[in-house]
């Protein structure tokens, strides 16, 4: 039992310490900025802010539902980034894949908006969004496999192209005639059913199921083994007769599909329509989630719940403690900072390292200038 606890601690020590340190940094930022802007020092402000943040994320049934709703796209987005990490790829394109998934699924769902029974339209829209995301992940996968164009750069470009595609589609073919500003129709009966409360749609169950599926794929199948090998050591994978090129294309497509599904669930479950300036921070938050979760599906779920809770509680923090919601971004970035500077944090707190975790990720930019050998 004791050995088990110690083992658990070595795994979670770094994330837990990073969160605590980030909370301290956040407190300093709050006190210091309050002093700069108002000229008064209030030690209680961070306490009030964190109390409001926590009660806004888990303090009531409604708060918990909000946390789950916020965590849903982050779980799927985190899986999209994490899966690519496992294959040695850095998927910065979750943002664009999310947008394409959302756009295509809203385009399909509005066709089914009065169709009964509703679940047929829902399933078709969900599948269409997932496929659209997969297609959008397939592009950088193929570009990398064929010409060696690094996926970080191509996916950044594709993210911005996706913004333009969404704006163009929503303001032309999908626009409701006569609306003051470009907006699509409501998805109507194709919306995700609400499971609990006012807005607790069933997306969270889909996301958790996908986490289980990805976990099984990665750790229980030959394909998952090959993917992890190609990610950890492409040279060895090639010697063992695996094809890094096809793994790259498959991993990027799957990652895109997950992010696309996140987009589909977001429009079918939360917004129910899209505007031409539909914006989201899910893409970059997903990178943070994947890193905090150590690219592991279970870790990603926990990290997504944490970040989802922070997003849900941010509103309460702004209203009840008068601290701008944007502080949450600072906290998230600081958590990541300590995770990334793990070697330094470990040295300060004398923690033991736990095998290959994030260190896998340090190899990712190495292929930046090079081509893929196959």
């Amino acid at each position: 039992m004791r050995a088990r606890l110690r083992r658990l601690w070595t795994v979670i020590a770094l994330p837990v310490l990073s969160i605590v340190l980030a909370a301290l940094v956040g407190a300093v930022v709050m006190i210091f900025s309050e002093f700069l802007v108002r000229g008064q020092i209030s030690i209680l402000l961070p306490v009030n802010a964190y109390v409001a943040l926590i009660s806004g994320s888990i303090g009531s049934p409604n708060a918990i539902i909000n946390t789950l709703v916020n965590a849903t796209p982050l779980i799927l987005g985190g899986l999209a980034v994490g899966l690519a990490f496992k294959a040695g790829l850095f998927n910065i394109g979750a943002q664009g894949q999310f947008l394409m998934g959302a756009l295509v699924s809203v385009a399909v769902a509005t066709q089914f908006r009065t169709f009964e029974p509703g679940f047929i339209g829902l399933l078709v829209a969900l599948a269409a969004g997932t496929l659209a995301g997969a297609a959008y992940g397939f592009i950088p996968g193929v570009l990398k496999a064929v010409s060696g164009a690094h996926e970080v750069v191509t996916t950044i470009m594709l993210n911005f192209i996706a913004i333009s595609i969404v704006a163009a589609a929503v303001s032309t073919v999908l626009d409701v005639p006569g609306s003051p500003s470009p907006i699509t129709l409501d998805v109507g009966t194709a919306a995700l059913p609400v499971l609990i409360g006012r807005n607790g749609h069933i997306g969270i169950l889909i996301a958790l199921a996908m986490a289980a599926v990805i976990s099984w794929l990665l750790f229980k199948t030959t394909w998952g083994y090959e993917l992890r090998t190609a990610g950890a050591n492409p040279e060895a994978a090639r010697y063992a007769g695996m094809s890094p090129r096809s793994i790259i294309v498959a991993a990027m497509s799957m990652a895109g599909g997950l992010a696309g599904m996140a987009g589909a669930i977001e429009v079918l479950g939360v917004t129910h329509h899209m505007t031409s300036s539909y914006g989201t921070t899910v893409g970059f938050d997903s990178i943070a989630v994947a890193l905090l979760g150590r690219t592991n599906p279970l870790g990603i779920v926990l990290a997504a719940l944490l970040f989802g809770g922070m997003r849900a509680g941010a509103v309460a923090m702004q209203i009840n403690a008068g601290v701008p919601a944007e502080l949450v971004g600072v906290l998230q970035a600081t958590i990541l900072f300590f995770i990334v500077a793990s070697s330094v944090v470990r040295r300060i707190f004398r923690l033991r390292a736990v095998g290959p975790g994030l260190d896998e990720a340090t190899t990712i930019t190495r292929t930046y200038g090079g081509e893929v050998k196959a």
Partner: protein
Amino acid sequence: MDIVSVLYEIPIIGLVFQLIGYLITIFPTIAPIVMQAAVPIAFAALCGVMCERAGVVNIGIEGTMLVAAFVGWAAGVYLLPVLGSQPALAFGVTPSLLVALGLAVLSGMVVALVHAWLSISVRADQIISGTIINIAAFGITGYLNALISRTSPTSAGRFTSFTPPEWLTSLPLVGWLVNTLIAQGPMVISLLVIVVVFQIMLFRSRWGLRVRAVGEHPRAAETVGIDVIRVRYRNVLIGGALAALGGAYLSMELSQSFQTGMTVGRGFIGLAAMIVGRWTPLGAFGAALLFASSVGIGQSIRIAPPPGDLGSLLGALPGQFFDALPYLITIVILAGVIGRSIPPAADGQPYERESAT
């Protein structure tokens, strides 16, 4: 005019001539605007060139610019009552603006220092480090902006553009060039100098040779006595200062206010301009101009579409096409379809010093 109309009438190919004709007509009007739009992109691209030539990938340019834009504006706001606002000789320079610009550049270098420490000393993944900077920059500037705007601050004003004498601007071609390049604010003019200086420094000086050696083959560079770590730190810091100028330009010269997330992806377009410009300062500047004209031409088509077939053809394109064009061009070039662009060989690779000595 007859030859022109004959050229315009040729099926399909005539469209090309119509396009050229249209571009020639609109260019004098959009050129100064294109120049202004290109400035932040070019500064971002220069930051990318500085970092990546030394082997450090920096995707935190966007965040660096955002922080500098905020600091420049906020420092101006807070320094205005302290330093006063006596207008100086030219460009609307006031003491508070000048100090604020210095602080903005300093803030950009501080952000760059974080990136340098994480990616050079800690040897963390450089893309992750850049991502952290972007998330943190968006969060902290948004947070502070929300706090400050509650006090409804008064602006510190902005750098104004230079007004050349009329006899100069009324000259035929020269006047047009003067209007585009010189009748601008101080940062636009300094960009032109910086581009040329860095182009020469990078390819014609000892310093440039060392930087490129570190970016291509750090091990070999160290063997001949170059301090790889120091070169990388210095270049990332220079890059931070350049990105900061691009950010400060947005909030101190192009406008005189700060909005949350006001860089709207210019740092990333800068990255694209760096790639299209093949990791050279001049090329990056050229690509920034190209990208800015794409957006400028798009806007011009929306406001005053060309007549005839060309007009109906371009009018059918969604306006967003021109916004996306720079990114499409970059992907095509990256894919090696036209003119392969190859990054420095050691780009993105952390360097571990030989343990000897």
